[in-house]
């Protein structure tokens, strides 16, 4: 299974195992993420996608297996540690505070202070947030807007922008297009496309909609019953192949339950 390594892996997981009591959430995960690519992670509910993301983000520790970041073996013992290695996660709840403005959300825990006073330098934070959002093409009326007043797509965009702005090198997106209309979804796909073009970050994206995976991802991993059953570049596969694999899973489930 050793591939020729033209581009280095920013993250590589080998033989990852994780059980919750009697339930084996992950059996034997082998996966990798190449610098600058967008990897789509698909699979049924309960296949282990969330557990895998939680392990890569340092929120959950695996029972067994090795993780390498930029070729070096690491123990992702905490979210803070994973973050210090440049791994940022955008959760489905987005971790935005409705009551705060866009720029305060962008700078939460990274506040710029009006040195030597312990006061917030709102002017600088406002300007930087405005400029950064403009640069990556996120359109909102004003960074002074409270986050509660934004649409689902805009909120998702702010959450992603915040993660990237904090110098993320590896971005984990947990269903960034969930519960979103086509227009809003297109906004996020554009944003991810832009990040890909800039080439600074590598992205793992959990998705339900295969169409969107084929739209944006370079490679897709299908997770079934705690193992990766398909790992192909998008150009080498087709929607039919993915569907066929998933349908076979359903058929097996149907026969075994009879």
């Amino acid at each position, binding site marked *: 299974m050793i591939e020729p390594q033209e581009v280095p892996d920013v993250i590589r997981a080998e033989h990852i195992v994780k059980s919750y009591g009697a339930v084996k959430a992950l059996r034997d995960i082998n996966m990798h993420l190449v610098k600058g690519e967008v990897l789509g992670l698909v699979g049924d509910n309960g296949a282990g996608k969330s557990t895998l993301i939680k392990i890569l983000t340092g929120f959950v520790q695996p029972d067994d297996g090795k993780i390498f970041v930029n070729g070096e073996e690491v123990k992702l013992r905490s*979210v*803070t540690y994973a*973050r210090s290695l440049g791994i940022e*996660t955008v*959760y489905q*709840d*987005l*971790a*935005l*505070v*409705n*009551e*705060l403005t866009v720029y*305060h959300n962008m700078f*939460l*825990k990274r*506040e710029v*202070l009006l040195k030597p006073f*312990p*006061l*917030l330098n*709102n002017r600088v934070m406002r300007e930087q947030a405005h400029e950064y959002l403009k640069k990556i093409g996120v359109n909102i009326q004003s960074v002074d807007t409270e986050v*509660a*007043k934004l649409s689902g797509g805009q909120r998702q965009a702010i959450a992603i922008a915040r993660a990237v702005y904090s110098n993320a090198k590896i971005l984990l997106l947990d269903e960034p297009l969930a519960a979103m209309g086509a227009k809003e979804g297109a906004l996020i796909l554009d944003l991810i496309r832009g990040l890909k073009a800039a080439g600074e970050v590598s992205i793992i994206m959990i998705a339900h909609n295969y169409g969107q995976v084929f739209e944006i991802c370079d490679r897709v991993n299908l997770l079934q019953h705690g193992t990766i059953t398909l790992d192909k570049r998008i150009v080498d596969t087709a929607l039919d192949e993915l569907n066929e694999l998933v349908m076979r899973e359903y058929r097996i489930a149907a026969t075994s339950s009879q």
Partner: protein
Amino acid sequence: MAKDVLPDAAAQKTEPEKARDRRAFWSNLAGILLRRREASIIVVAILLVVYFQVSNQNFFTQANIRTISQFAAATAIISAGEVMLLICGEIDLSVGMVFAFAPFIMYFTYQAGLPIWIGIIFGLLASAVVGLFNGLVTVLLKVPSFITTLGTLFLIEGLNLTISNGFPVLAPVVGAFNQVFGNSPWSEIIWAIAIAIVMQVVLSFTKWGLHTVATGGNLLGASETGVNVNRVKIGNFMLCSVFGGFAGILEGFRITSIDPLAGGTNIMFMAVAGAVIGGTSLMGGLGTIVGAFLGVLVLSILFDGFTLLGVSAFTFDIILGAAILIAMILNVRLQLLREAGRQ
């Protein structure tokens, strides 16, 4: 053709347009009152002042304003701490007992022969310890703060009665010190205003304030972002207790007597009521110190005004209850209106 029609149409539209302008004016005004809760409380306060002045010529006199200020000051100081806690989604019911506890610690320290300023520091430290206890039990043992502080409420009340044997003592007299810390007629309200200003700056313009709002607005999200929500909560519990203790010390010097039954649940509920009337949400994430200060001021004006009019204390409680209910219902309705406005 179209060019000919346009001016006519414009001329015809002047009447409806005027109406629209009027409507725009009112909706703008309503918008300001909706957004800035403080503005609507100031309007209420001014209306009350005008009403009481018309009803009773003694209302707007220096002596009466001083009375109102003294009535409002201690409660306003407590409400500043209570708002910080309410914003991060917690409440402190025990603060009224700390109000009586701190001056006793100060008194005993002074009796032991130490200077009065050490006594004040010890009083405030003891208050902080109560806050720390409230915070630790709430955050680490995951007991809801309503219950935690209900426990410490009775605990501290019993402690106050025990250490004082149930009797009030005379506040130490140390000249200028007394004047600064509550005894001079305007000293208490000056402290209250200063604390309100400082705390509003802390809330609006510091990291601590930002993290407090984030903790109450989205607890999980704030912790995922890396905000130490436990530290924020415990810190605000301590802050609230310290303000309660400080207000108690000022009050002790003002009335020259330290009473184990001072403060209690009454002053605590007045502080919470003031905060709520001032626009603080009991759900967390929303509120201002200035709003709470104005809320307490409105309650004090009401209390004083009705007293001057000879309305009985019983009636006053009915009015206070109704005022809190109306304020809360408005709060909820306005919140819904605001959310509707977002769509």
